[in-house]
């Protein structure tokens, strides 16, 4: 048992936290209960102290509200110019984050952390600007009132009756490095207010009478003190953890809050957050996605999304699970995750109904007998109040693009009811035919068949309508007295009731089957879309085609114009070159894409960063690196931000990123190999050449200096000898150089084959003419086809091959040997060989001879760098042929090469 040792995970988390903190700037919040307590003043005083301590201190933005004490504080501090933004006809002064990042001071003063930036700014909220500053290593001093804390926002609203719209997530407050509480007793604050020392924003002015009541101020002061105390408490806990004083905290609590649609859930989330904070517990917001999800109106679905996001902003983990029964899923999840407390809202049903149909809460209570269940009371509240903290995403995207919310399946409904009516009429006609011959109860069966048809075809509403219509029609036409709704025989009332009940049950069942099928269909679609793209991505190796495949699928699946932007080698995101693809997006904002690429975070439409853009940008990040950016311009932004679609987009992005990374890695490997090859070639060339150039140079310098300095003492014959030696060596050197240049040219791929029809004899003749000097004392035999065939080749290069082979033969055979040049024109292929009756190749040498710098007899004085055959191979392979070495019939060496002849030789009309 080593329970006194710190938990390694906690240790690791601590180390990581410390590391992160080291690089990040430090955040200090001047925290107060209300406006006017002197936060800005305290902040500026602290800034002065820092500046005097030698810290590079700059004021980013401070609202002085014309107060002379504050202005006096500002006077000798450097102040960054503000950004002037046109907003609603006026100009608004906004904090300029780019200027701050460029200036990069040690400490930046930014007032009012909860401020909302004007539309078109990089981030909608100032706290997000501050987060980016901290990330960039700039420390920040800022100010905050208690009412702006997200988790306390509604409580403050309840106390004061004024709800503010500008809030910050508690996470920001909790993770601040320092919080200084600026406290002022309510009486003093009221005095200051009376003395006109407190500036009030216009909307607050209206509420001021209510807001600045002593009772309110006392409550707010208590809230801020308590919140600060909570923070101190948490710090204490951290300190204990850091120092392994862990006995006081045996097991951490886990809290689960169940989120549904509806405003009650928002309240529930906040309550859970307060509860979790009080317990020091981690907490999870759970939403159970039932088939009902598809049935909810869009507004409700948005609200679920909002509530989940609110929970995330308040520090929860949000989880969505799928299932049919909410209670069972909640309990199952709670058990699996070892949850200690479940938070639920009070059930709405009351009285008898609750007793008849057990609510979800009851069933959770039954199922989770061993887990604490906390039931939170709910209060009805005008929905306009809640609007202030709606997730910016949906409102923004909606208003921005002017997309109006439309009742779901509006277009489907009318035909549905018309169809239901038509089917009921048809059933009545069939009934009329059967009437008199069958019992009336059998006619009921006909109507039931009709109801089933309607339910399956048109869904629940029309089928309920059909049930009612059927009962009415049955009564009207087939129950005596006919053609009235009156009923003479009361037993028909039972028939009607049963008929209606069966009709309704059928409607429900059929409709839910239909729904399930549709949900399954959607899932199927998503999965097959993903599969389709993965399959296509796997089939290609080139980034360009991957991008094309990705764009096509993204455009199709998400109903958007899509673009995939890749960075250039310098890391700057670029528009794709080349032809555009169907569905591709042009002119995406590269600056946003660059931000997304650099920060590896989504931005643009539907996010917290630059939400004013009409394009949604998602980073393409593989586990190892940022590969690029996806830009989507959705035709209907709402469809893109449904949770399922978002998850799908993430999956798509992941797939594309991995595919592109695979291609890039392959490309990198290829480049690296090529470089290694080139390097190797260069090294061996240097090694080979330096020897083969120095030797002849030595003799040239020696011989020529002898001639120049002591010509008179030499006999004419000696002079001639020396000169001839110089000429010979120089020619040799020139050959080496020419070979090296040729080989470099071939290796670099910088030559173009000049394929033409040539007469074979002429090419051979050209080579023999050039090699005549070297072959002087060897007998050359020719065995060429008698009809001098036309062959397609690059004459200059093939002549070079033949010259090299002939000179090779001359080099490695004794004088008076026989060298044979033979050729054979086979169908589709020309075979040319050069053989001799010399000593031949050593066994095993047949492949080696074509390597660069290979020499038949390394020690001998026979000249050459050993490049000749390597050049031959390059040329022949460029023609698509093969060259090989072997033994000739005469016992010497035989080199043969093939040249494919694809086209038929042109035929000339014979004259006469």
């Amino acid at each position, binding site marked *: 048992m080593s329970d006194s040792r710190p938990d390694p995970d906690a240790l690791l988390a601590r180390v990581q936290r410390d590391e992160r903190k080291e690089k990040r700037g430090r955040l200090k919040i001047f925290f107060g209960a209300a406006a006017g307590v002197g936060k800005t003043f305290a902040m500026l005083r602290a800034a002065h102290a820092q500046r005097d301590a030698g810290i590079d201190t700059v004021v980013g933005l401070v609202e002085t509200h014309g107060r002379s004490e504050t202005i006096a504080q500002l006077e000798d501090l450097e102040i960054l110019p503000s950004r002037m933004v046109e907003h609603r006809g006026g100009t608004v002064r906004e904090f300029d984050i780019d200027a701050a990042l460029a200036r990069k001071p040690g400490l930046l003063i930014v007032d009012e952390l909860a401020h909302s930036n004007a539309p078109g700014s990089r981030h909608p909220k100032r706290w997000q600007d501050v987060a980016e500053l901290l990330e960039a290593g700039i420390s920040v001093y800022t100010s905050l009132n208690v009412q702006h804390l997200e988790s306390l926002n509604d409580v403050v609203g309840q106390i004061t009756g004024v709800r503010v719209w500008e809030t910050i997530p508690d996470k920001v407050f909790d993770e601040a490095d320092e919080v200084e509480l600026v406290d002022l007793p309510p009486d003093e604050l009221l005095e200051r207010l009376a003395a006109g020392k407190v500036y009030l924003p216009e909307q607050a002015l209206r509420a001021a009478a209510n807001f600045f009541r002593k009772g309110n101020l006392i409550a707010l002061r208590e809230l801020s003190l308590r919140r600060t105390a909570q923070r101190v408490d948490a710090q204490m806990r951290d300190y204990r953890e850091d120092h392994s004083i862990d006995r006081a905290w045996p097991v951490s609590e886990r809290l689960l809050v169940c989120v549904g649609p509806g405003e009650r859930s928002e309240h529930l989330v906040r309550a859970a957050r307060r509860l979790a904070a009080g317990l020091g517990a981690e907490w999870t917001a759970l939403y159970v996605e039932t088939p009902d999800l598809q049935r909810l109106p869009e507004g409700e679905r948005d609200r679920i999304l909002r509530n989940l996001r609110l929970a995330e902003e308040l520090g929860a983990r949000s989880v969505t699970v799928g299932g049919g029964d909410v209670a069972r899923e909640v309990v199952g999840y709670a058990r699996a995750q070892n949850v200690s407390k479940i938070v639920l809202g009070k059930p709405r049903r009351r009285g008898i109904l609750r007793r008849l149909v057990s609510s979800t809460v009851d069933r959770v209570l039954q199922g989770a007998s061993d887990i604490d269940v906390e039931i939170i009371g709910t209060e009805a509240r005008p929905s306009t109040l809640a609007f202030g903290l709606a997730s910016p995403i949906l409102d923004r995207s909606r208003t921005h693009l002017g997309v109006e919310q439309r009742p779901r399946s509006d277009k489907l409904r009318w035909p549905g009811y018309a169809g239901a009516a038509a089917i009921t009429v048809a059933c009545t006609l069939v009934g009329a035919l059967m009437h008199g011959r069958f019992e009336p109860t059998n006619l009921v069966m006909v109507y039931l068949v009709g109801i089933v048809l309607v339910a399956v075809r048109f869904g629940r509403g029309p089928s309920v309508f059909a049930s009612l219509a059927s009962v009415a029609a049955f009564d009207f036409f087939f129950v005596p007295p006919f053609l009235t709704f009156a009923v003479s025989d009361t037993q028909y009332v039972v028939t009607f009731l049963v008929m209606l009940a069966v009709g309704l049950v059928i409607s429900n069942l059929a409709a839910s089957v239909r729904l399930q099928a549709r949900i399954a269909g959607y899932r199927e679609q998503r999965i097959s879309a993903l599969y389709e793209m993965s399959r296509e991505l796997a089939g290609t190796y080139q980034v360009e085609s991957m991008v094309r495949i990705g764009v096509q699928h993204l455009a199709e699946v998400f109903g958007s114009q899509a673009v995939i932007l890749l960075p250039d080698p310098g890391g700057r995101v670029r528009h794709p070159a080349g032809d555009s693809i169907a569905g591709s997006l042009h002119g995406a904002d590269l600056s946003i894409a660059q931000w997304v690429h650099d920060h590896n975070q989504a931005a643009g439409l539907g996010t917290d960063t630059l939400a004013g853009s009409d394009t949604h940008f998602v980073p393409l990040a593989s586990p190892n690196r940022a590969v690029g950016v996806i830009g989507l311009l959705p035709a209907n932004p709402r469809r893109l931000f449904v949770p399922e679609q978002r998850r799908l987009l993430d999956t798509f992005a992941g797939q594309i990123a991995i595919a592109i990374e695979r291609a890039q890695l392959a490309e990198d490997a290829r480049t690296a190999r090529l470089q290694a090859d080139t390097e190797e070639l260069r090294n061996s060339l240097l090694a080979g050449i330096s020897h083969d150039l120095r030797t002849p140079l030595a003799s040239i310098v020696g011989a020529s200096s002898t001639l120049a300095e002591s010509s008179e003492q030499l006999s004419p014959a000696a002079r001639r000898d020396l000169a001839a030696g110089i000429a010979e060596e120089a020619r040799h050197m020139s050959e080496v150089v020419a070979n090296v*240049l040729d080989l470099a040219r071939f290796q670099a791929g910088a030559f173009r084959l000049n394929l033409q029809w040539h007469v074979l004899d002429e090419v051979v003749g050209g080579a023999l003419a050039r090699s005549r000097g070297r072959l002087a004392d060897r007998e050359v035999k020719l065995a060429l086809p008698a009809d001098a065939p036309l062959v397609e080749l690059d004459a200059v290069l093939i002549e070079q091959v033949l010259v090299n082979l002939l000179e090779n033969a001359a080099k490695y055979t004794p004088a008076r040997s026989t060298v044979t040049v033979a050729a054979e024109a086979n169908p589709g292929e020309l075979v040319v060989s050069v053989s001799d009756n010399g000593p031949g190749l050593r066994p095993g040498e047949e492949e080696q001879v074509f390597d660069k710098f290979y020499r038949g007899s390394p020690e001998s004085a026979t000249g050459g760098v050993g490049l000749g055959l390597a050049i031959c191979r390059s040329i022949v392979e460029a023609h698509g042929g093969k060259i090989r070495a072997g033994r000739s019939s005469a016992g010497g060496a035989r080199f043969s090469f093939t040249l494919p002849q694809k086209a038929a030789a042109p035929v000339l009309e014979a*004259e006469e």
Partner: protein
Amino acid sequence: MTSERPVVVVIEDEPQIRRFLRTSLDAHEFTVHEAETGKQGLVECATRRPEVVVLDLGLPDMDGVELIRKLREWSEVPVVVLSARSQEADKIAALEAGADDYVVKPFGMGELVARLRVALRHSAATGEDAQSVFRAGELEVDLLNRRVRRAGADVHLTPTEYRLLVVLVKHPGKVLTQRFLLKEVWGPGYAESAHYLRIYMANLRKKLEADPAQPRHLLTETGVGYRFDAGA
């Protein structure tokens, strides 16, 4: 042309090469005038009235091909071009601009002097009335009677073969580009049909050369064209 020592203008920017050309050509009984640049070369050609010009294609101030074109505007003096290996396109351009022959660097002095003498002879020949009977080794071409003989025996040539042979023998020693030959023999429409030329050349060699694979008169300049060598 009556001078004992033919006058040659060497246009070459490399001082080392100029030096050895001067020394050796002097030793081979040429009167040498040198020029370092293209401009200076044109001036030398105008003032010295050379019988042959040696021109390096790579000059600092002017493209060698351009120089030939300018020179040809007022002079028919034979030009022998010095070029590097594997520059077939440059050689062809120079020949088509009006150069007579080329020598590939590095070259032996013997080779250059031989080419210069051929060029001189050639210009002397065109200077006189056209010969009616042309002899090279055992080959005899009677332009007047359109007869060709080899070792005294009549050789039967097709009209195209004969036209081709005539174009070649009228420019002995001069390298004729494929394009030039095609234009002269087949007409301007055939400039790209180089294989016609190669087939007829092969036929001519079969009829006129002792060993068609190792010809003595009808020589191939691989990648460039053909040359008729009258033989010493």
